[in-house]
């Protein structure tokens, strides 16, 4: 996924990617990433948990405005099925 992200950024469109495998993200080096320690297949969290999904998407979007260092991996630290999203 990081390769696609890099290609889009290279075309001049800023990108942010959600990552659930930090080791891969560290190697591929996309411009901005939001890392979650979540199981495969759940980058936005649990099914029908709109608040959780919206928070994660919103965090990713924020990175477009706040990240200034290329290759930054943000870690909000949400714990799978433990964190309470409002």
């Amino acid at each position, binding site marked *: *996924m*990081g*390769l*696609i*992200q*890099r*290609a*889009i*950024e*290279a*075309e*001049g*469109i*800023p*990108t*942010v*990617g*959600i*990552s*659930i*495998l*930090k*080791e*891969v993200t560290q*190697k*591929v*080096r*996309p*411009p901005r990433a939001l890392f979650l*320690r979540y*199981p*495969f*297949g*759940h*980058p*936005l*969290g*649990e*099914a*029908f948990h*709109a608040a959780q*999904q*919206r928070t994660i*998407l*919103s965090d*990713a*979007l*924020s990175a*477009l*405005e706040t990240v200034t260092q*290329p*290759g930054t991996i943000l870690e909000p630290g949400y714990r799978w099925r433990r964190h309470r999203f409002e």
Partner: protein
Amino acid sequence: MALPKDIANTVLVQVYKHLPWLGSRWARRRRFVEGQGVPWAHLAKPLSESVVALVTTAGVHLKSHEPFDMDDPDGDPSFRAIPSGARGDDLVITHKYYDHSAADRDINVVLPLDRLRELLAEKRIGGIGPFAYGFMGHIDGPHLRTLVETTAPEVARLLKQDGADAAVLTPA
């Protein structure tokens, strides 16, 4: 009847889902196309005025699209353009290398189009690109080159044509 290799794949998918350290070990040992430098583009205007598009490698496509090729062990480097107005019922996931049972029930788990529409309604973003782009991950061998040299740059150009000011990428 399921072939033994399909059963083995199904077991592996569950093992990797429930034992995340295995995925980390796999990632440490496997070679990736490592980034030389990091490309960088600035957001040209505030997020609240920016058109945002989604790109996913979770294997999502319209039911009317041709499914991704599951028979090639190196994956399928092609992509599908998904109208951003698509609803969960219009979409399906073709990807046998991860457990998408949650995303099958609620597509927003991998392609958060409903959440993006809510953020637009709240004026957190300025617009939604007309299309989301769906790839399948798990691309290897000769298809990596096709992805890097052909299909990924093609999607980048399409996003530009679509007027996207930013893109959010979601994995499987």
